[in-house]
C-alpha cells in the first residue's frame, strides 16, 4: 500500500530547512519505495517546523521539528508506520494547539496539496461557490451582511456595507481587488493561505464577483513573497483550465478574469487607495476619500477592495450561511480571527479562533511565553501602527471595540512579543523612523511629522530639554493623528504614545547618544573591521546594539 508523507512547502517551513528534509527523505527512501510525498502548506505550528506527517490508520501522525540529520533515524525508527521516535508528536489533529482552534478560514491550510483541485474538492471546496451561484447576487450580499464579517485587514469595516454599495452601483465594469500586500510585521496569515490553500481565495473572489457584478479581479501581492506569487500563478492557471475562471464559471453566466499583480517594495501600498494607484501603474500615493473606492475605485470604476483574509472567509460563509458564521465571536466582532503569534515567543504561529479570546491567553497559553524564558515586557498588536501593551495589560479580549477603548487596535491580528530587554524609547523611535521611510509623501503631517518625530525622540533619549520635548512630541502626535490623510500618519502616534504611557521609565533614563538607525554605530567601528571575523566573535548582548 502506498504510504503518504507530508512535508510543508510553506516559506516559513522552508526557511528552516523543509526542502532539505524533503530531499533527504526522498533519497533515504529510494526511488523504489511505495511512498507519495505531498508538499502541503503549514499547519501553523511554526515552532515545530519542519513538521513531517505520515498518513496512518489513526490519522496523520506528526514529527517535528525535523532536521536533515534526523531523517535517516526517523526512517529507521519506522516513520512510514507512524512508529515511536523522540520527535513523534502524535496524531496532529489531536494536538492541543490544533484541537483548541476553530479553523474556518484556515481549515484546509497544511492539510491539502495547495495545487490539487481534486484535494480542494475533497475537502469541501467549491460547495460555497455552487451555492452562491444558485442564489441571486442580492441574496449573497444579504448573507455577507448577516455574517457580520468585518474587514480583516485592520480597519474592521463591515464587509456587507461595501458589498451592498458595489452591488447597487451602476457600471459596465466593476472590479474585485484582493489586498495581499501584507506588510505589517507580525502578520503572515495572508502568505500562509496563499501558499497553503490558494483556491480558497479564488473561490472567495468568485463569490464576491457574482454578488457585486464584477467581471475583473486583481490580487495585489507584495514582492517579498515570491513563493506565494508562484503558487498563486499556478493556481490561477489551474482554475482557468478547469473552468473556474474566464467565461461561464462552473457553467453559470458568471464571467470573471483574475490577474496577479506584484508590488515593488512599498509598505504604503497596503493602504487601499494607494494600492489602487499602484495597480494602475502609478506612484503608490494615497487618494483622499471621498469618493470611496466602492463607487470610484480602480480605473475610476466601482471596486470591492478587501484584505485577503476577508475574501478567504467568504467560501465558509457561502457554505453554511451568514447566520452560522455570526454564531462565533462577541459583540460586534463576529466570526473567527486568524491570530498570528510572532516575535519572541516559545510557540509562534497561527491561532484561528473566535473573537473574545484574551491577549493573555494568546501570549501565555498558546504562545507559551518568550522563547528565551525571560519575562514578557511588551506586546505590540496590529502591526507597526498598533499599540504597545505592557505585560500587566494583557487581560484584554481580542475584540475591535475593546481594543479601541484601550487605545489599541486588533488590526490584522498580528501579536508581536518582546522580552524585558526591550527599550521602548527605541521602539517608539523606530515607529517614527518606519513612517518616515514608508510615507507616500502626499500629506505633510505624515511626511514631515515623522522626520521631526525621530528628531524629537532622539532629544528625549539624549535628555535635552526632556520635559519640553515630551510636550512637543505629544503635540506632534496630535497633529499627525488629526491631520494625516490616511492611517499611516494617523496611526504612527499609536505605538509612540502607548510606549510613553505604559513604559515612561524608558524615556527617563540617563541621557545617551541617540540610538543609531539600523546598522553601523560609527565609522571607526566600520573600518576597523573590514575583514570577515570568525563566527561568534561579534555576538553581542541583546541590548548592546540598541542603547
Amino acid at each position, binding site marked *: 500500500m502506498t504510504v503518504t508523507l507530508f512535508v510543508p512547502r510553506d516559506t516559513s517551513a522552508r526557511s528552516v530547512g523543509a526542502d532539505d528534509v524533503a530531499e533527504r527523505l526522498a533519497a533515504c527512501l529510494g526511488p523504489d519505495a511505495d511512498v507519495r510525498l505531498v508538499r502541503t502548506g503549514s499547519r501553523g505550528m511554526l515552532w515545530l517546523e519542519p513538521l513531517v506527517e505520515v498518513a496512518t490508520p489513526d490519522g496523520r501522525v506528526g514529527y517535528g521539528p525535523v532536521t536533515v540529520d534526523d531523517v535517516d533515524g526517523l526512517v529507521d525508527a519506522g516513520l512510514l508506520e507512524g512508529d515511536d521516535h523522540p520527535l513523534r508528536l502524535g496524531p496532529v489533529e489531536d494536538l492541543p494547539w490544533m484541537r483548541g482552534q476553530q479553523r474556518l478560514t484556515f481549515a484546509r491550510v497544511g492539510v491539502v496539496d495547495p495545487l490539487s483541485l481534486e484535494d480542494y474538492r475533497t475537502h469541501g471546496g467549491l460547495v460555497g461557490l455552487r451555492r452562491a451561484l444558485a442564489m441571486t447576487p442580492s441574496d449573497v450580499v444579504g448573507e455577507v451582511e448577516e455574517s457580520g464579517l468585518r474587514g480583516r485587514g485592520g480597519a474592521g469595516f463591515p464587509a456587507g456595507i461595501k458589498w451592498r454599495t458595489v452591488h447597487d452601483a451602476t457600471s459596465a465594469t466593476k472590479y474585485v481587488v484582493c489586498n495581499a500586500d501584507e506588510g505589517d510585521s507580525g502578520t503572515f496569515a495572508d502568505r500562509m493561505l496563499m501558499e497553503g490553500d490558494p483556491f480558497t481565495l479564488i473561490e472567495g473572489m468568485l463569490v464576491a464577483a457574482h454578488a457585486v457584478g464584477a467581471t475583473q479581479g486583481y490580487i495585489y501581492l507584495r*514582492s517579498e513573497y515570491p513563493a506565494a506569487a508562484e503558487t498563486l500563478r499556478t493556481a490561477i492557471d489551474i482554475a482557468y483550465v478547469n473552468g473556474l475562471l474566464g467565461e461561464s464559471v462552473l457553467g453559470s453566466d458568471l464571467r470573471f478574469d483574475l490577474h496577479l499583480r506584484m508590488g515593488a517594495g512599498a509598505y504604503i501600498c497596503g493602504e487601499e487607495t494607494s494600492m489602487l494607484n499602484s495597480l494602475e501603474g502609478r506612484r503608490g500615493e494615497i487618494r483622499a476619500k471621498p469618493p470611496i473606492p466602492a463607487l470610484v475605485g480602480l480605473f475610476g470604476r466601482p471596486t470591492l477592495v478587501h484584505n485577503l483574509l476577508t475574501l478567504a472567509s467568504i467560501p465558509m460563509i457561502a457554505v453554511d450561511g451568514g447566520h452560522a458564521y455570526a454564531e462565533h465571536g462577541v459583540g460586534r466582532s463576529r466570526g473567527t480571527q486568524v491570530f498570528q503569534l510572532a516575535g*519572541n515567543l516559545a510557540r509562534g504561529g497561527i491561532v484561528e479562533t473566535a473573537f473574545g479570546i484574551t491577549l493573555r491567553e494568546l501570549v501565555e497559553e498558546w504562545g507559551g511565553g518568550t522563547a528565551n524564558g525571560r519575562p514578557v515586557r511588551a506586546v505590540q498588536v496590529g502591526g507597526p501602527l498598533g499599540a504597545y501593551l505592557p505585560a500587566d495589560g494583557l487581560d484584554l479580549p481580542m475584540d475591535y471595540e475593546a481594543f479601541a477603548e484601550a487605545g489599541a487596535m486588533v488590526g490584522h491580528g498580528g501579536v508581536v512579543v518582546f522580552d524585558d530587554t526591550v527599550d521602548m524609547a527605541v521602539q517608539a523611535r523606530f515607529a517614527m523612523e518606519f513612517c518616515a521611510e514608508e510615507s507616500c509623501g502626499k500629506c505633510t503631517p505624515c511626511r514631515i511629522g515623522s522626520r521631526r518625530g525621530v528628531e524629537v525622540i532622539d532629544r528625549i533619549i539624549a535628555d535635552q530639554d526632556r520635559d519640553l520635548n515630551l510636550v512637543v512630541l505629544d503635540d506632534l502626535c496630535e497633529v499627525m493623528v488629526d491631520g494625516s490623510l490616511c492611517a499611516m500618519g494617523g496611526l504612527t502616534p499609536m505605538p509612540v504614545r502607548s510606549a510613553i504611557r505604559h513604559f515612561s521609565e524608558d524615556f527617563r533614563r540617563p541621557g545617551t547618544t541617540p540610538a543609531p538607525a539600523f546598522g553601523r554605530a560609527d565609522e571607526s567601528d566600520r573600518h576597523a573591521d573590514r575583514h570577515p571575523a570568525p563566527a561568534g566573535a561579534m555576538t553581542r548582548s541583546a541590548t548592546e546594539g540598541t542603547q
Partner: protein
Amino acid sequence: MTGVAPAAGPGLGVLEAVDLAVAAHRDDEGPLLEVLLSVQAELGWVPPEATRLVAERLNLSRADVHGVVTFYADFRDSPPAVHRLRVCCAEACQARGSRDLVHVAERRLGVGLGEQTPDGRWELDKVFCLGNCALGPSIEVDGATRGRITAASLDTAIARAESAGTGAGTGAGT
C-alpha cells in the same frame, strides 16, 4: 559604479529588454509597473535609458516614469551585486535580535546597509518584513527566506550562496 555586474543581462540590451517587457504587457490595464518590473527582472536594474524608452513606448512623460521608478524601493538605479543579503528589520525580528544581526552581517561582508562589496560579489540591505515573523530573526539570501538565524547560520547561508555560484539576488525578489 563598482562591481562586476554587466550593464545588461546576458545577451540582452536595454532596448530589447524594454521591447520585450512592453510587448508582454501592452494589453494590461495600467501597464507601467508591470513593464518596469519586467525590465528589472531582465536587466537587474532600471537604467536611465530604460526610463526614457519605456516612457516613449507607453506614451507617457519621462517624469511619470521617473516618478514611479523612484517611488518604489525595489527599483534599482544601479546594477546589482552577484549576491544579495537582506536582514529583516521589522518589529517581530527586532524582538529576536535583528539589530545585533545587522551588525554581524555588516562585519561579515565588510559593508554597511545599502552598500556593495568592492568586488561586486555581495550587497547588504534591510527589508521590512519577510512574513516569517514566528521564526525570526530572518534573512533573505538571493531571494530565499531563512529563519532562526544565528551568527553561525548566517555564515552557512552566505557560504551556501557562494557555492551555488551566480546568485538570484537581482530584481524585485521575484
